[in-house]
C-alpha cells in the first residue's frame, strides 16, 4: 500500500482560483472591483491577498492541540436554559 505523502502547499494562483470559484458559487461578483488600485477603498488584489491568508490560517488552527473533552462548544447547558428564567413582565 502506498504511504500518503503531504501534497505541496497550493500556490497563490491555485488559491485565487479557489477563492473566485467559491464566491461565484454563492453568486458574489468581485469583478466590479478594480483589479489593483491602492487609492480605491478596495481592489481585487488586496481582497485576494487577504482571502489567501485566511485560507492558510486553517493550517494553524488545525495544528493547535486542544482537549476536545473540556473545550467543546457543545450545547451544554442546553440552549433551553435561555427559557429557565422569566423575563420581567412575563
Amino acid at each position, binding site marked *: 500500500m502506498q504511504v500518503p505523502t503531504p501534497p505541496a502547499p497550493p500556490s497563490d494562483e491555485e488559491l485565487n482560483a479557489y477563492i473566485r470559484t467559491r464566491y461565484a458559487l454563492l453568486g458574489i461578483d468581485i469583478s466590479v472591483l478594480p483589479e489593483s488600485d491602492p487609492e480605491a477603498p478596495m481592489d481585487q488584489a488586496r481582497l485576494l491577498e487577504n*482571502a489567501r491568508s485566511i485560507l492558510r490560517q486553517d493550517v494553524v*488552527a488545525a495544528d493547535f492541540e486542544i482537549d476536545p473533552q473540556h473545550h467543546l462548544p457543545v450545547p451544554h447547558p442546553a440552549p433551553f436554559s435561555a427559557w429557565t428564567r422569566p423575563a420581567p413582565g412575563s
Partner: protein
Amino acid sequence: MTIGSPGYRPQDERVSRRWFLRRMAWVSAAAGAGGVLAGVPRQVRGRADLLGPPPRVPDAWLAGAPRQVEDPTTLTMSESMTLTRSGELDPADLVRAYVDRIEALDGVYQAYADRPGRDALIAELDALPADERRSPLRGMCLVAKDNFYTSDLLTEGGSLVFENFRPDYEATAVTRMRAAGGLIAGKGQMGNLAGGRARRYGTLIPTTRNAWSPDDERYSPGGSSSGSATAVAARLAVAGLGTQTGGSVTGPGNAQGLTCVKPTFGRVSLYGVIPLSYTRDHVGVMARDARDAAILLQVVAGPDPNDPRTLGLPDPPDYVRAATPFPGGRPRVRWSTRVGIWPGYFADENERVNELRRAFVGQLESNGGVEIVGELSLPDQWEELTAEPLGGSHGDPTAFFIEHLRRDVRNFADRLPRFLNGMLQSADTYVRVQQARNLLLDRIVSQLFGQCDVALTTATGPFDGTGLPLMCMPIGLDDDPETGSRVPRGVVMAARPFGEERLLDVAAAYQAVTGFHRMRPDDPA
C-alpha cells in the same frame, strides 16, 4: 441583599466560574448551530415591561456646595438629574441648550448621522409622564450609535449597505433609554459596519472629528463608535451608547477623555443592533464620569426576551451605588481590590503615556482598599490563543450579509474582506476557534484573575473575545506628536465576569480625588 447591607459582596465574587464558562460554551455552540438563536420566540412588549427598577441617583453635590447652572451642557448627567429633580433646572431648557450646540457646531464635529428636529425633541419631552420616578432621565439628551435600530430615525451603520434604511422597530437598549425618559438627540456616526473611524459612506474620507481636535481631521476620534464619543465629549449629548466587538467603545472613549463601560457579554440586549459577531458584540455605555456610566448601564442592562444571550443571568446589581464613592476623608474603594499591571504597561513608545500611567497607579495605590500586586503573568499559550486565527472571529460576520454581498460588493468598501472571509473559513476551523475561545476564557478567569481582581491592560481584544467586562477613563493630557493637539490619554481596566461593580468602584474612588474626567475640550475655532 443590597450594596449597603453588611457582608454584601460584588457580583464578580458571587458568580460561579464554572457556570459562566458553561454558559459561554453554550453561546459558541448556539452561534455555530446557526438556527438556535434565530429560533427564539419574539415577543412584543411595552416599554414598561422592558424597564427595570429606575436608577436611584443620589444628589450629585454635597449639601451646601455651589451648583453651576450657567451652561447646563457642562453638567454631568447625575448633576443634571439632581437639578431637574429639585426644580433648579427646567428639562426643556436643558434640551434647548443641547440643541443650540448641535445646530451651531455639528457642522464641524459631524458627530451625528441623523437627528430629530428641535420641535420633535421638545414634543417628546412634553409627552413624558409627569411622575419623575417613571422618567428619571427626563430631559437627558442621549446619542445612540447608528447601528441601533430606530424607527423614527435612519439606521445606516456608517455604510452604503444600509443607506436610507429605516427599521420598523427600535433596539431594546434604545427603548429602555426612552422608557426612562431619555431623548435620542441623534444617531452617532460610526465606522463602516462597525470598523474604523467614521468616513463618508463608501470612501476613505474621514467625517467625524475628535472633540479635542475639531479643526484638524488628522487626529482620529477613534472607532468605530466615533460619533457617540464626539457627541458626549463635545457636549452635543450628555451620554450615549456604542458597541464593541474589538475595542470600539474603549478606543474612542479614551481618544476623547470619556468614562465608558463595556459590560459582560449578555448584560445588555443586542436585539435591534446590526450584528457583526453573534458571539462577541457588546453594547457599551459612554459617559463623562463613572457615575453617569453607571446610571446609563443601570437603565439599559437586564434580560430581554428577544435576546436569549441576556436571559438566565444574575440580576443587574446597583451600579449607581457602586459608582458612588464613600464621602469624606481618604478615598477608598468599597471592596478590597487587587490590581494587576499588564506586562510592558510602563514601556509605551510615548514616554508621556508611561508618566501618566505611573501617576495613575500611584493614585490608585494611595486609595484605601487597593493593593497593587505588580506585573501579571499572562495565561499559558497566550500568544497562540489571542493571535490569528484562534483569537479571531472571521466566520461570524458573513451569514447575515450574504444578500448584501450579492447585491454589490462595492458597498462594503474597505470592510469587504471582513464580510467575505466567513465563507472561506472552514467549519472545522470555526469550531476550533470556538474551542480555543473557551480555553482562553477558562485561563483568563483562573490564571489571570487568580492574581488580581482588576487588570490594567493594554489589550482589549482577548477580553472582547471572551465577553469579559472592560472600563476606560481619562488619566491626563498629552500633546499629539503629529497634530500638536492637546488630547486626553486614558486607561483600560478589565475584570472577571460581572465585574462591572468593581470596575465602577475603582473608577469612582479615583475620580473622587482627580479631575481628569472633568476636563472639557474647547469649541471649534
